[in-house]
């Protein structure tokens, strides 16, 4: 049943998303029967199958603890760092199986950037934080770095606040500023996919609006996946929405469709705020 809904929605999504550029793949990220365990006893993700289209914004919604972050972290294999994990099924990104032993994880992570739910800047200056991903890629040209710092910080709506103290420690920023800083350093090296885990959870409405504006701008260039607990935000920024519940993907569809006319009862109850 889940499968059929997914297929239906992708077809409709093409119609309802006029912003999708020509030639973009509809199954850019292809998740098939993917299950995931942190410990042998508890299955956190259960047989997830979904296709995420290229150069669109897909939002993941669902109650806390349902596995959104876990799935997101699998896309750039951040879960590798946790000992004892097991998984089944496959995830292809741009036709490439990401769990292939031959795959170079580092370059995967360079292509697929993640912004964490909890911002944690490095104990370095704001400037160095933003250009970190360029530095580790061996790009040290000062003019280039300066330019990247400005465009990234502007993109993350942080430039005006920090332009006079770029060389101060990033640890002196407020929680919301730190969150925008992590967006800035994620977009600095122009990744292909941007995974955003509740990027606006600590932001005021003005900053949130700026971030949403940024996401809308980015989606022509990148594929964006955003996890959010804010239904309005999902409707405002995303083309596709997937609803998760207890480790299962319940429903995925074009955003207007899912909010206007959800096909599952749980989805409707969650969206209308009856639980969650």
């Amino acid at each position: 049943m889940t499968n059929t809904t997914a297929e239906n929605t992708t077809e409709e999504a093409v119609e309802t998303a006029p912003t999708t550029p020509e030639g973009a793949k509809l199954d850019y990220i292809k998740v098939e029967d993917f299950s995931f365990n942190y410990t042998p006893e508890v299955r956190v993700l259960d047989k997830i199958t979904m296709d995420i289209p290229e150069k669109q914004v897909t939002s993941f919604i669902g109650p806390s603890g349902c596995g959104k972050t876990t799935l997101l972290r699998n896309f750039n294999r951040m879960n590798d760092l946790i000992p004892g994990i097991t998984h089944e099924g496959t995830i292809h990104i741009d036709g490439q199986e990401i769990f292939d032993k031959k795959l170079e994880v580092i370059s995967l992570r360079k292509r697929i950037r993640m912004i964490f739910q909890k911002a944690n800047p490095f104990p370095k200056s704001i400037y160095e934080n933003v250009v970190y991903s360029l530095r580790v890629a061996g790009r040290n040209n000062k003019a280039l770095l300066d330019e990247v710092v400005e465009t990234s910080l502007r993109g993350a709506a942080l430039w005006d606040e920090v332009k006079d103290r770029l060389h101060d420690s990033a640890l002196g920023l407020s929680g919301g500023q730190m969150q925008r800083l992590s967006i800035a350093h994620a977009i600095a090296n122009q990744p292909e996919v941007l995974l955003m885990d509740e990027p606006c959870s600590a932001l005021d409405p003005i900053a949130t609006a700026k971030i949403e504006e940024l996401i809308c701008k980015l989606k022509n260039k990148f594929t964006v996946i955003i996890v959010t607990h804010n239904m309005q935000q999902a409707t405002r920024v995303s083309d596709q929405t997937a609803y998760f519940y207890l480790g299962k993907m319940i429903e995925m569809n074009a955003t207007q469709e899912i909010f206007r006319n959800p096909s599952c009862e749980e989805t409707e109850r969650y969206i209308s705020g009856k639980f969650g």
Partner: protein
Amino acid sequence: MEQPTESSPGEGSEIILDDSRFDVSRKVLLTDGFMTWFIKFGGVMVVAAVIGIFVFITSQVLPLFKGASVELDAATTTTEALPKGNYLGIAADEWMEKPLAIRDDGKFIYSDLVTGEVLESEFDFLEGDKMTALRIESGEDLIVAGTESGQVHLIEFSYSPTFKDGVRTVNEDLNLAFTGEFNGPVTKVSCGQSGDSRLIAVLTETEEGPHLELDLVQRKKSLISAGDWKEVGKTDLTETLRSDVAVQEILVTNRADAVLVVFENGEIDYHFRSGSGLNTELRQTFQPFADLNEKKIKNADFLLGDVSLVLTSPEGVNRLFSLYRSEEEPTRMFHQTKEFPALPDTPAFYSPSFRNKAFLTGTSNTATLRYATTETIRWESELPWEVTHALISRKSDSLLFLTEDRHFVRVPVDDPHPEAGIKAFFGKQLYEGSSEAKYEWQSTGGSDDFEAKLSLIPLIFGTLKGTFYAMLFAVPIALFGAIYTAEFLDPKNKVFIKPAMEVMASLPSVVLGFLAALWLAPMIEDRVPSVLCIVVLVPLGAFLFGMLWSRQPRNIKKYVREGYEFLYFAPIMLILLFLGWQMGPLVESLIFTVKDPNTGERVGDFARWWPSITGTAYEQRNSLVVGFMMGFAVIPIVFTIAEDSLSNVPDTLRTGSLALGASRWQTAWRIVLPTASAGILSAIMIGLGRAVGETMIVVMATGNTPIMEWNIFSGMRTLSANIAVELPEAPHHGTLYRTLFLGAVVLFLMTFLVNTIAEVLRQHLREKYKTV
């Protein structure tokens, strides 16, 4: 705080919700109060103990920096004046209770400083003759007198104490040991002793002019008695005299190996006596005050040890000349080594100390106590009496003056540490027998006239050297080990590393020292090239292997689980280790070759090659061995603390960095290491502290030679090793004892300084890299 009771279910709700739930129980308050005080008390006690130790050590050290104190007010004097007459010399017993003055008519007059009495001795050696020359060789308990009729008498003076009811009485004795015959009236005499013979230098005035003769006398020992002195031979040195200048003074060294002739014009001839016979050669003629207008010498005499000559001009210029061999000279000659502040007037007296390199000199109404090694004035004062003669006591605990009005005055002196002082500990000194100023430590010597060399600089240097080599070896290994363990090793394997390190840390340093001295040092001794090969091969191999490994495509790497790479790495390292060890002799025979003096062929021998190339020594127990072993003691400390601080870096930073596409090494290097830098600095500093204070390993694994060179193949002596080695032999409250404490203070200050700098740096780093 009224709660709606109906909302809380259950019977006991009323009891739960009464106001007592806001009370704090007495027990909690008591425990809290007690613990607060207990911890405060403990803290105060610790601080007090540290301060106590420091105060104690400082109190042991401070007396070293005090000058001499001479209590002129506490002087003891004879009540009676000596009989009228012209007194030529004085001598005294060990306790300075019965000084002796010799009058020009040959009378020996004793004074008793306990009773204040003056008693003229019955002793008469002249038998009607007239005394024309006198010299008192106090160091040899000998009086040498020359007469008008050409006789020279050797008179031994001695004192023997007897105790009755705990009261000491000193009994004097005089004994005419020898009389020699010369032609013409004797004008100057001097005598020295070597073994069983005595060398007497005699200047006589004959019709043809002055005559200088050396007379060798020997004692024929028999089984029953000490035997009598018999003349063995004479030699004439008259030729060396000047026809136009008179001889002012002749001096024979105590050891009878040199005769100095001082002329009226300020020149000195140095005759060296070789062997035990009468062979002498004129080695040097020098004029100590050649650069002054007044070239004359008023006073010339030796310091204890007879290697240095204290010279004073009539104007009071006070110089020290010592025997040493300079580069261009074939033998040891006299050179000026020190110049003391001038006396205010013509010198009236001179007396060397019997214990050290101090001397007492002065004008008729001033006196000064000076110390030759450090070129310092220990004490200086005007005198309330006019003085003609003075003498330092044998124990250096009092001064004896003979005044113009013929009274003996004894003044107590308190100068327990004349050889100490800032200059002695930290300055370069021109020691006797050495041609240049040096930092040198040599606290005890073979003979009584030994000059103490107390410079702490070689010890500080040794401490730094040992620490340097230990850290050079330990820090890279410990830090890279810690980084590997914290960042790359599979956490499951960590559980083996920590206990292994703890075992390593708990090895007593005496065991390490023992291993170093008896196993490592002999093993390395003739395998230095092997060690060098290993030092080159292993890191290089590790580096190449790492590089190759990282270049491997994924499908090769996939066979090795991340965190288990060491399983492949370790065997390669072991093979390299073995290869390096085996390659040593080959490398030695190719590179480190020297010409064998017997066969003339070139053979590989590092132990001889090293000195021939660098000119520095090669010792079996060297800094390399110490570096290894001390490194072994330091590694676990640095490793443990560094590993902890690396592991404490929040994982979110690591994931954050990895998520941005950094490799594990980039993450470790750019994020983890800087974040943990404060902790790593602490680790290095604590390791440094351990190395600086380490004692047993250094004592056992080095030759403990206080040298000052960075040469890795020579040893060292550290401050702590110095304390361990010398404290058992240092007399309580003596100079050496206190100097060792001073070494401890210096060590304390060194670690204090290092720790303070480190702490400031650490705070700075912590501020810079603190995490949210």
